[in-house]
């Protein structure tokens, strides 16, 4: 197709390439990505100030953002572990988040309603229902794996077929939610207010938000400890790093995969319940969270649970701060921008391996 090029122009092209590669090598460092993300976040704060948002309000938004980040992190941990261990983007994870929120609601209906735990808006029954829902959704995730993904693994199917099957499962689980609970919006405690607390520095935060943040942190620490110290955690990290070598070292990777699904489904449920507490239950709530979760996974580096948690907090803050001057429904777009910036600069993410 291309005509013969003169040797001179080839040399010129080669030179240009080398310069391009040098520029790319500078750009693709972690430091550069951190700077760019910091600039974007600073820009969001500046945008808020320009739009007339007060400094204290931006401070609350930051705290709210951390709470939202906790929710994204809970979803994102499962997503990144599945990505790492099985190496495909699991689009159905969003539907697991919705399913978890709704199963929690159904368990609550079965439990006696206790007194409200001050300063939160919920009673113990909510926590109990969530803890009951977590294994249920974990088992649903495992069942989907047994029926769909394990067959694909056995045939050594291409990543694309896994992705497509997960798209199918996204709509499958989502339609189950629609079928079981209907398209209407729900609240865990319809009409129950959760007045904001007055904290130092003029921060106004609802008790629920503080609880979400705290619970998110508890789960994150627990997951980190599990990955770092337990046998199964180490096996998960090893399988995510190099599945074939993990098998050679004596790890039953099918069992690791099974536990990854259960854990991912359980954490997605916690995320869904938290999200339902802070907003409303909608069948598509998980689909809406899908983009922020994937952004956290990519920013944190595929398969890197710590990275996903840190990135989720950044994304949550960016999301809430941007709401000071943007329509809040554009939150996923903010996450998307951060994700694309990461992909452009350093596809292996903030905490991924390789490069500087």
């Amino acid at each position, binding site marked *: 197709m291309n005509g013969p090029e003169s040797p001179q122009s080839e040399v010129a092209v080669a030179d240009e390439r080398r310069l391009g590669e040098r520029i790319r090598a500078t750009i693709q460092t972690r430091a550069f990505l951190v700077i760019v993300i910091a600039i974007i976040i600073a820009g969001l704060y500046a945008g808020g100030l320009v739009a007339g948002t007060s400094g204290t309000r931006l401070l609350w938004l930051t705290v709210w953002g951390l709470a939202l980040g906790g929710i994204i992190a809970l979803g994102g941990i499962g997503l990144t572990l599945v990505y790492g261990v099985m190496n495909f983007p699991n689009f159905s994870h969003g539907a697991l988040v919705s399913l978890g929120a709704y199963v929690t609601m159904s368990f609550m209906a079965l439990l006696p309603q206790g007194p409200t735990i001050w300063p939160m808006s919920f009673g113990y029954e909510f926590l109990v229902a969530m803890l009951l829902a977590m294994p249920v959704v974990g088992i649903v995730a495992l069942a989907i794996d047994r029926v769909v993904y394990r067959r694909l693994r056995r045939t*050594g199917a291409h990543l694309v077929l896994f992705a497509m099957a997960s798209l199918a499962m996204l709509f499958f689980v989502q339609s189950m939610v629609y079928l079981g609970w209907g398209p209407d919006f729900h609240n865990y405690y319809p009409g129950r207010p959760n007045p904001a607390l007055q904290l130092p520095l003029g921060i106004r935060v609802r008790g629920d938000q503080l609880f979400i943040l705290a619970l998110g942190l508890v789960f994150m620490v627990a997951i980190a400890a599990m990955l770092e110290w337990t046998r199964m955690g*180490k096996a998960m990290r090893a399988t995510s*790093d190099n599945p074939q070598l993990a*098998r*050679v*070292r*004596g*790890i039953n990777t099918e069992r690791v995969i099974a536990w990854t699904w259960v854990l991912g489904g359980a954490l997605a449920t916690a995320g869904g319940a938290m999200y339902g507490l802070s907003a409303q239950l909608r069948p598509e709530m998980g689909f809406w969270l899908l983009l922020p979760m994937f952004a956290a996974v990519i920013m944190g580096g595929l398969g*890197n649970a710590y990275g996903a948690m840190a990135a989720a907090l950044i994304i949550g803050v960016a999301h809430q701060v941007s709401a000071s001057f943007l329509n809040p429904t554009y939150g996923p777009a903010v996450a998307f921008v951060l994700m694309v910036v990461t992909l452009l600069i350093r596809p292996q993410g903030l905490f991924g*391996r390789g490069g500087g």
Partner: protein
Amino acid sequence: MPLLKADGVTAGYGDMEILRDVSIAVNDGEIVSLIGPNGAGKSTLMKTVFGLLPTKAGTITYHGKPIHGREPHDIVTLGLCYVPQVDNVFTSMTVEENLDMGGYLLHDRDIGSRKERIYEFLPRLRERRHQRVGGMSGGERQMVAMGSALMLEPELLLLDEPSAGLSPKLVDEIFDNIRRINASGVAVLMVEQNARKSLAMSDRGYVLAGGQNRFDGTGEEILADPDMARLYLGG
């Protein structure tokens, strides 16, 4: 009875048959080299022995018991360990964590002492114990890989091209390590491109070509055979 025996093994990827009717054996305490041109099926044979690829025909026995059709995580419990040619370390983990993974099947109380023995055997690993393997050189990674495989104190070690991509000095070091491992009583089956060097230290060798057995004998016999020298040993 040989330690490991593959008899008439046919295997490959998907529908593609790479090995046809290949037979080898490794006896207790031996070093056996597998040599042959690229694409001869040497690595495929290693993977098949270790259960990473299905055995389509033939039998593989270890201590006389069939192991074909078993899962790798099952085979490793029998006393044979495998160091793949590439991707043979967990790059996101430190040296120590890699050794821990090598001892994944051990009781927690045994891991410490085993690690201590590995560090004594390969002192360079001790200096780097908290370093992430991803940033290490090829020679160091190879040592981490071997060290992890030795954690289970296997009777038989399968090494797939342990010297690939290393400088001549490091090659000598790796071969020296293999000799030391063997001297401690571990049988070694290795695939090597450095055919002359590996045959020189091997008890026996097998020449594979085109997925089939071509020749076998002691190291000296293969080195002395004019055809083998011309065809597979580069002059």
